[in-house]
Each structure stands twice: as structure tokens, then as C-alpha cells.
């Protein structure tokens, strides 16, 4: 309950004489409510962030301290060396380069083709349009896991499996981008494009000069969401990228766990932190767009 709301309703309550008005107790109840609210917030915040704190602290421990009984919560000395060793003792640099390449290309294609198609779906009228859009929406209910096998066989026959192309092809043309952009285009008044048409702008011109500049928030949302998804993807690379030179950061870090019998966990945690930090920064900077993008995608319910 917001404070203003309580104040407003408190006033109303005074006017209603038929009602018992326990003003004092309501103030007390409000205080109790706030205390409970804060307690719940703190507990939830700890539950949400403790694993990250554990990851960060472990990355600065010695390898023995990570696994020890009784538990070492705070590293005795901060081993910053872990953050230097990880680069020389693993293919971290290659993994990051591959991941970055994939994330940038996939995001670019998804945003470009997604917004282009969204214009067709939201501004052009032609037979078959709605059926086509339904096909897009329908695939949201179809899990990728159920068609990953024929997709793999198809791409193997096209000779692109075990290349970065495979990941680009399966991820750049998702329905999600089209859906998100269309959802946003619907909120832009049709009159704007009408006026531009009368001024002699072609449909492509309207898309480029009017819709693109006006839909910057939606483009930002889609860019961030796609980038993060591609960066974090594990299954696609797992199935398609067998050659260690093509590994993404997720595959690389996972191989770090399973390959060495005596995994150096401190080093692994340093790697995990390095893989999470860019995403965390991107998220902090574009938080607003993340939240808006997700809220919009939920609007169709």
C-alpha cells in the first residue's frame, strides 16, 4: 500500500461516520506492516544475492579453501592471482572472442530482420498476413528441444554444423524479436505514417525514417535481451560446436569443470566471475529497457 493511498483513504474513512474508524491502530498496523515488509525484503535480497557473494569470494580463495570443512567463508588472503592465471591456463580469450562475435552478429540480425518484419505485420495489409503471424506466435508454445534433432540434421546436411554459422542461423530469426517489435509498433500512431505517405515517402522510407527513430526503446530492449541470451546460451553451442577453437565461454567454463579431475575451483570461479561481469554491467546500464522489454512481451496475455 502506498503512503499517499493510505492518507487518501484515511481521510475518506474519517468522513464515513457509519464505519468504525480505528485510526490509531491503523497507524500501528501500518508500522508493523512496514517492518514486515523490510524484513521480507532483506531476507529475499540475501537469498537472491548470497550465491553471487559466494561466487565472488570463492574466486579469491586458494583452491583448498573452496572445499574445506569447516567452511571458510572469508578468504584468508585475497588471491588476485586467480584472475591472472585463468587467462594463461585456459582458452578464455578464444572463448570470449567467439562468444562476443556470435552475440553481436545474432543481435544485429535479430534486431534488423525483426523490426523489418514487424513493420510488415503491423503496417501493411495483405492476404495471409494474420495466418503468418499466427505461425510465428504458435512457435512460442513449441519448445526448441522438440525440434533440435531435425534442425541439427538439416544444418549438418548444409555443412554448417561445427561452425559458428550454425548458431547464427538458428538464433538470428526468432519469433520473439518480431513479436516484441510489432507490439511496440502498434503503439505508434498510424497518422504519422499516413502523413509521411502523403509527403511521398515509400514504405521502406517510413520504416527507416519514422519507425526506427521512434522505436529506439524497443530496439534497446530487444538488443539487450538477445545479446544476453546469446552470451548465456549453452545448449546450442553444446550441440553444434565440437571444435574447441569454436567454443563459447559457457562451453569452455563447463569443460573446465568436467575435464580436469582435480578441477581448480578457485580458478573456475574467477572464470565464472569474468563471464558474468560483462552481462551484469550491460544489465545495470540498460536495466530500464530490460524491464520494459519483458513487460511488453507479457502484454499479450
Amino acid at each position, binding site marked *: 500500500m502506498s503512503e499517499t493511498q493510505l492518507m487518501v*483513504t484515511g481521510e475518506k474513512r474519517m468522513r464515513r461516520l457509519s464505519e468504525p474508524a480505528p485510526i490509531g491502530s491503523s497507524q500501528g498496523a501500518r508500522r508493523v506492516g512496514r517492518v514486515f515488509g523490510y524484513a521480507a*525484503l532483506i531476507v529475499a535480497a540475501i537469498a537472491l544475492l548470497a*550465491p553471487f557473494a559466494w561466487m565472488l569470494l570463492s574466486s579469491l580463495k586458494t583452491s583448498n579453501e573452496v572445499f574445506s*570443512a569447516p567452511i571458510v567463508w572469508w578468504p584468508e588472503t585475497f588471491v588476485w592471482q586467480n584472475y591472472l592465471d585463468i587467462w594463461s591456463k585456459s582458452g578464455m580469450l578464444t572463448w570470449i572472442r567467439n562468444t562476443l562475435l556470435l552475440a553481436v552478429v545474432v543481435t544485429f540480425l535479430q534486431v534488423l530482420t525483426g523490426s*523489418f518484419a514487424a513493420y*510488415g505485420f503491423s503496417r501493411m495489409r495483405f492476404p495471409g498476413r494474420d495466418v503468418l503471424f499466427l505461425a510465428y506466435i504458435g512457435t512460442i508454445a513449441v519448445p526448441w528441444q522438440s525440434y533440435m534433432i531435425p534442425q541439427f*540434421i538439416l544444418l549438418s546436411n548444409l555443412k554448417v554444423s561445427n561452425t559458428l554459422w550454425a548458431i547464427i542461423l538458428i538464433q538470428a530469426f526468432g519469433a520473439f524479436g518480431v513479436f516484441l517489435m510489432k507490439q511496440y509498433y502498434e503503439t505508434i500512431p498510424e497518422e504519422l505514417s499516413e502523413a509521411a505517405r502523403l509527403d511521398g515517402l515509400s514504405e521502406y522510407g517510413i520504416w527507416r525514417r519514422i519507425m526506427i527513430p521512434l522505436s529506439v526503446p524497443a530496439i534497446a530492449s530487444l538488443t539487450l535481451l538477445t545479446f544476453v541470451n546469446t552470451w548465456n546460451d549453452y545448449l546450442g553451442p553444446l550441440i553444434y560446436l565440437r571444435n574447441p577453437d569454436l567454443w563459447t565461454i559457457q562451453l569452455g567454463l563447463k569443460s573446465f569443470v568436467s575435464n580436469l579431475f582435480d578441477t581448480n575451483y578457485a580458478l573456475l570461479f574467477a572464470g565464472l566471475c569474468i563471464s558474468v561481469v560483462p552481462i551484469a554491467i550491460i*544489465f545495470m546500464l540498460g536495466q530500464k529497457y530490460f524491464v520494459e522489454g519483458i513487460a511488453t512481451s*507479457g502484454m499479450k*496475455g
Partner: protein
Amino acid sequence: MTSTVAPPPNRPPRRRSALRRRNTLIGWTFILPNFAGFAAFTLVPVLILFYMAFTNWNVFGKADWVGFANFQRLLGDGSFRISFWNTIYYSVMHIPLTIVVSLGLALLLNSKLRGVAFFRTAAFFPYITSIVAIAVVWNLLFSPDFGPINAVLRSIGIAHPPGWLTSKDWALPAVVIVSTWRDMGYYMILFLAGLQTVPRELHEAARVDGANVWQRFLNVTLPCLRPTMFFVTVMLTINSLKIFDLILVMTNGGPGQATMVLSQFIYRKGFVESQFGYASAASVALFLLCIIVTIAQFLWNKRRSV
């Protein structure tokens, strides 16, 4: 100049149909770049899937039509049955738990407490973290002897805390805990967006009528949230039925087959054992399960809203 303005009624019909043809053409050029990729790598594979499921497609690409043999084999396959029930068990635990937790968080964040903005960021953090990082960290947290979770449990007097991922009974609940932890920030945002649509006047009216917090939640907030609740349930159901990557990285189906789920069964039969035809039949089962459950939810929602 291309123009989609509806032609005035007094124009000759031939020009109008030419205009319509041009509109169709332009419309298609907009959609085509995305649709070509979408059709080639999503629609076509789905169609191939239904063919492959009826063949004994193997690693050499040799495929003979075998009719329903794959599906008959599935029915008698013990590990398929285990994966199916594990998937259902996971969904039945994960869906309500996530709804309750994320709705609770959203209600909390919808209030004017201090620090709410920071908290919203924190709640979203797990969702943007990679599965691999989550799995590695939680595997250690859940470690029966060296893990902080059991250390805390022991310190509050539980002498024999569960073995979590090493125990057949506790492995799946442990996965549910992690995936709820991961997902709640995402669904919280959806609920938060839904809560913005609840009219404030309704709350005030209910308060004036003497409804307490709980009554107002039941009779005002929940009914107003119904569209959001429906969407969240549908998304959660699909996401639960296809659960895979978290399990693959955390437990790889173990111990034994305690956390083996449908997607993983498909992955094993297909990519590990190269029985592509048989794996496709299992894929069709997953496909139909998701579609049928989604359609059922839509029908139920429609009937309830009439």
C-alpha cells in the same frame, strides 16, 4: 510513389487490384528476410520431425519407414516413463512455487518501501546469469559435506541435512529450488506490470467497505491480475515441460535417473546414441504434450472468462 491509402471508391477496380498486388508485394519484402530464416530453421525442422519419428533414421542418414514402431517402443521404455514422470513432478513443484514467490515479490516491490529499486535489480540478477555459472555455484552450495547450505542447516540443529544432488529423493527438489531462484525475477516483472493495471479506486472502495489486506488481495488484486496470471502460467508450464539445460549442467540426469527429464531423454537418444528416429518419436511426445497443455489452458481460460 507507393501508397497504401485506401483508394477512393470511384476509382476503376483494375487500379485497385493493382494497388493490392503491390501492397502484398511490399508486405512480403518486409517479412521475407526474417521469415526465410524462420521457415528454414524452425518450420521446416518441425515438419521433418514428424517424418523422422516414423523412421529408423540413424547416424548414417539411412531411414526406413517403420510406422508406429518407435512409439510402441517408447511406451515400453522404462527410462522414457521415468523421464516423463520426472518432468511432470518437476512442473508440479516448480509452477506453483514460482507463482507464489514471484507474486509475493511483486506485491512487496509494488509498495513504497525504501530500497525497492535496488531490490528489483537484485531480483533480476539470477535471470541474466548463465546456466553454467548458476549450476557450478549451486552445486557447491548444495555439496552435502562442504556446502554452506548444509553448514547452515547443521548450525540450526538439523543433524542430518539432506544429501541434495547426491540423493535420489532430494536431487529434483534441489533443481526446483535453483530454477525458482533463477526464474522469479523474470515473472516478478510480469506480475509487477500486471499490478500497474489494478485500478487504485477499487482498492480504496474495498478499504472503505472495511475489507482487510488479505480480503482486498483475494477480491481486488487477484481478479484484476487474471490476464497476467494466465500468461505467466502458460509460459511457466511450457518452460517447465522443456526444462533441460539446468539439469544437464547440474546433475546430468543423475543420480541414477532421478533427475532425467524428457528433453534429456531426447538429447541422449539423439546426440549420444545417434538413434535419431527414436529420439524424434520422443520429441513428438514432448511437442504434443506442450501443445495440448497450452491449448487446454487457453480453452479453460476462455470458459472461465465467459
